[in-house]
């Protein structure tokens, strides 16, 4: 997030929520948005194909066709420019390439886009005016926006919108991805990505690499590494021979599970380090038992870049070892010594190579966590990014054209399938399916079907059906609900026995981010 | 019968007027049907739990089905000293129901009420809010017979 969570409760006067079912997937952030709308009169725009909880209190509820995000937001920008609502000073002083944006959004008048997106043109105008005229407008999104073959385009379009209206760099504004996992932010910050070292320092940058070679005392590879989907593909071909999976479960989370399974089976070595015998661990050659968050010390960085403490409450179960210890032990055996006395000791090293974390210490975050960037011990942290200037200097407008999703419905597969999360489960279910109350409350998957779709298919609520795509099928019970529009069905990906990712495709990913298109697959439902 | 949605919409210009909507619904149905309560909550922008809390707070509102005629027996002090207890017994026996119940033909529901402000002519009963004065056990059969 460019801004901090509590600004959504207090500072934002308009909030544009797109592709996030916030009350289900980031409940506490959802509470804050709702509170701001209900008690402070903040305006709320919801753009989501589904009728989510926040739709009920929205000033504008744009239930648009999945995959048409760019068109929708381009049309909003078209309205803003046409009506002269853009922030001219901000554009002049803090951005570049505006002319290119103007040229492209000219092609997206609301009347036309209304047809593309299946929404009312007047609602697009209303949304545009609310956001553009707000004193402090905040954009929140999650994977409803990003999990598309055009995910990067979608995000850039949201940035365009914020730049156009000057909604950046102040409290209550910003472009705010709500990240789905406790430490996905931190994993990125720490360089658990194929192209960067900690703090997003490029592995291909010779100067950077030299610095790390010096610090780590070994020569480093100058080449970008492979993303997960590429690794899976290359394992399939046999180019990747050995894989270590640490606290992940691609056998449930990754697209086209048949394909993933074949890849895993093809490996010479699969090491899994986890707390349970996950679907992935079942395929492993060697399994290291690690520990849960309750058994370890360390830090998590949340979606607003706040680095907070995790504290050990109990001793590890059985002969499970601290995860950091396992990594050290393995490294030592590989001939690269790693000797740390504690997570705090590791953190001390992190601070040295991660400029944004340099000023953060365990002592400083004993009570309250600190937002990075925090360059030195005197620095209070940075809840709001881009106050004076952007990382690259001027904010760059990207001229982005709308592209349809990769796999559109057709006669054979007439429905659009989207996948996502439930309030009651988390990710691949490794933890929540083993939490007694959560699993008792929601023991199985469902597919949400609009009543009209259901009537056409002659299916009723709570009926077991076959949900089929070109990749395969799952058997799942129906939940007939107006939450999903006619023609769109939605299912959760937490359930390995009815795994949504059997259905999703891994062929066409976002070309830049390599994110799979979980929000649009062509599907059909058959009675059993 | 009028549609409950139309009845509720008819009260929309009254700010905070959910109780007015409940009255209007009861005029039509003699109680507040569940789906109407949910709709009223939506129209007046309050939660369903809140609408239910309101509907159950006031003794003249009901979310349970009631008979065509709601007979309320006043039991406040002026009617009490005028023989309300005795009259209530007579009402129960003549209607064949206890307080809170509805006759099997759906005609009468018997409720208790506090003072209805007609104390010049006690004891008082009301039938669908119309007061009937000086009701004695003797004239009761004839009073009830008037309601078809």
């Amino acid at each position: 997030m460019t801004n901090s969570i509590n600004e959504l409760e207090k500072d934002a006067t308009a909030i544009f929520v797109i592709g996030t079912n916030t009350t289900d997937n980031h409940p506490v952030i959802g509470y804050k948005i709702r509170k701001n709308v209900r008690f402070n009169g903040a305006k709320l725009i919801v753009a989501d194909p589904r009728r989510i909880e926040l739709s009920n209190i929205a000033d504008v509820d744009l239930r648009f066709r999945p995959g048409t995000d760019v068109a929708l937001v381009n049309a909003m920008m078209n309205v803003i420019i046409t009506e002269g609502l853009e922030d001219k000073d901000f554009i002049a002083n803090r951005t570049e390439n505006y002319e290119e944006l103007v040229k492209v959004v000219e092609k997206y008048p609301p009347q036309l886009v209304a047809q593309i997106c299946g929404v009312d043109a007047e609602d697009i105008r209303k949304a545009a005016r609310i956001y553009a005229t707000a004193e402090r407008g905040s954009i929140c999104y999650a994977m409803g926006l990003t999990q598309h073959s055009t995910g990067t385009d979608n995000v850039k379009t949201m940035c365009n919108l914020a730049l156009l209206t000057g909604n950046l760099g102040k409290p209550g504004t910003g472009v705010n991805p709500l990240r789905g996992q406790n430490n996905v932010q931190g994993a990125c910050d720490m360089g658990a990505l194929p192209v960067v070292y900690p703090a997003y320092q490029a592995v291909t940058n010779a100067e950077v690499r030299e610095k790390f070679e010096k610090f780590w005392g070994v020569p480093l590879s100058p080449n970008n590494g492979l993303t997960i989907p590429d690794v899976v593909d290359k394992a399939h071909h046999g180019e990747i021979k050995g894989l270590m999976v640490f606290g992940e479960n691609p056998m449930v989370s990754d697209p086209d599970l048949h394909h993933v399974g074949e890849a895993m089976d093809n490996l010479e070595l699969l090491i899994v380090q986890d707390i349970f015998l996950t679907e992935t661990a079942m395929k492993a050659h060697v399994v290291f038992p690690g520990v849960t968050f309750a058994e370890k010390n360390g830090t998590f960085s949340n979606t607003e870049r706040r680095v907070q403490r995790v504290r050990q409450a109990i001793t590890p179960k059985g002969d499970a070892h601290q995860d950091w210890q396992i990594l050290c032990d393995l490294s030592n055996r590989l001939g690269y010594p790693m000797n740390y006395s504690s997570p705090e000791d590791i953190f001390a090293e992190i601070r040295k190579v991660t400029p944004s974390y340099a000023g953060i210490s365990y002592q400083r975050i004993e009570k309250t966590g600190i937002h990075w960037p925090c360059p030195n011990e005197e620095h209070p942290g940075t809840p709001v990014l881009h106050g004076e200037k952007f990382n690259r200097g001027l904010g760059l407008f990207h001229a982005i054209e709308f592209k349809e999703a990769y796999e559109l419905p057709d006669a054979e597969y007439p429905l659009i399938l989207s996948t996502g999360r439930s309030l009651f489960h988390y990710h691949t279910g490794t933890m929540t399916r083993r939490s007694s109350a959560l699993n008792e409350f929601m023991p199985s998957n469902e597919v949400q079907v609009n009543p009209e779709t259901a009537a056409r298919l002659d299916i009723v609520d709570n009926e077991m059906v076959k949900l089929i795509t070109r990749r395969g099928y799952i058997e799942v019970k129906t939940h007939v609900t107006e939450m999903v529009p006619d023609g769109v069905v939605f299912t959760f990906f937490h359930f390995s026995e009815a795994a949504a990712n059997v259905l999703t495709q891994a062929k066409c990913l976002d070309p830049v981010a390599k994110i799979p298109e979980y929000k649009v697959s062509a599907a059909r439902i058959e009675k059993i | 019968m009028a549609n409950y949605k139309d009845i509720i919409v008819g009260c929309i210009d009254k700010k905070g007027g959910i109780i007015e909507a409940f009255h209007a619904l009861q005029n039509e149905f003699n109680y507040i049907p569940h789906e109407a309560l949910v709709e009223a909550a939506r129209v007046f922008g309050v939660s369903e739990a809140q609408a239910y809390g309101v509907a159950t707070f006031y003794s003249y509102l009901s979310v349970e089905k009631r008979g065509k005629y709601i007979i309320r027996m006043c039991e406040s002090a002026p009617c009490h000293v005028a023989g309300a207890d005795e009259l209530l017994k007579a009402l129960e026996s003549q209607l064949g129901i206890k307080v809170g119940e509805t006759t099997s033909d759906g005609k009468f529901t018997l409720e208790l009420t506090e003072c209805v402000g007609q104390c010049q002519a006690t004891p008082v009963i009301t039938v669908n809010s119309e007061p009937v004065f000086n009701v004695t056990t003797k004239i009761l059969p004839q009073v009830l017979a008037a309601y078809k």
Partner: protein
Amino acid sequence: MIKLTVNGREIQVPKGTMVLDACQQAGADVPTLCYDPDLKLAGSCRMCVVEAKGRPNLMAACVSPAENGMVIETESPDVVESRKIILELLLARHKLECHTCEKDGSCKLQDYCYRYGVTDSRYAGQGAHFGMEDPNPFFKRDYDKCIICTRCVRVCDEITGAQAINVKERGHHAKIATVFDGKLDDSSCVFCGQCVMVCPVGALTSKVSAGKGKSYQTQNVLTTCTYCGTGCTFELNVKDDHVVGVTSVRESEFSPVNKGALCVKGRFGWDFIESKERLTTPLIRENGELRPASWDEALDYAANKIKAIKEKDGPDSLALFSSARATNEENYLAQKLFRAAIGTNNVDHCARL
């Protein structure tokens, strides 16, 4: 500034200060049940009544603004008498089973009865008994312990915004209920358990923690939630080296993001930690099956295989999927392991999923 006297002590408070806060400033501990600093005021439990000189009635300190020249007594005979009787009135309908109650030791009703020496109620009689229950797996609703302080109603409305519950009926028959007094599952309840957090008595208690330890038997460890990216903080309750529950910390100093608010997963989804299915020993695949192994054996096995592959096919034939659930320290080490010890940038994690 406003000058007033509390229990003979003169103090100054800013205009707009409530008598309750003024009393606290003067060192007087005024008991409260319905009062919650994070919620709208109710002024309904009347436990916080104090005596203000010259006023015929007692005043509820939580809803009375301090005024210049007020002379307040917080434990005068009238005040103590009122508090005792209010406690007796509550006890008269409260199911007294402190020995098995989850809130034993952290129950305000219990604390105040102790403080004012209220052992039983002279007003015990008949009364509304709504019994238990709601068949949800997360928390117990025991109406026979409810004191209608409405903190649950207010927190559900004001903090969570679910607005699932309200008071139904009125007077002694008032009851906290969902629409049509149905099950929580059929309402807009999201089982966040904020109501459990604010309940001052044992009317709302976690089912997941039931029987596992009372508050005074546990140590609490402040930590950060392991689920979504919001970064809520809370305390893990530990008894005999087992996690037995999660409780909120509401001070923003310790809970800057969520201020005690949680979701159903954070508050009730912690017992996977204690699951019997936890991996407790390394495993090695042998003849197609995973079998237990010692750490040395497992680590050697992995290290040797990695070395062999690296030698044969080069470091880029190895890859790491690191973890969005692991700590920063672990992620740092994991990528360092692959980059420095093995020599490949094939490092990724499921940020996209």
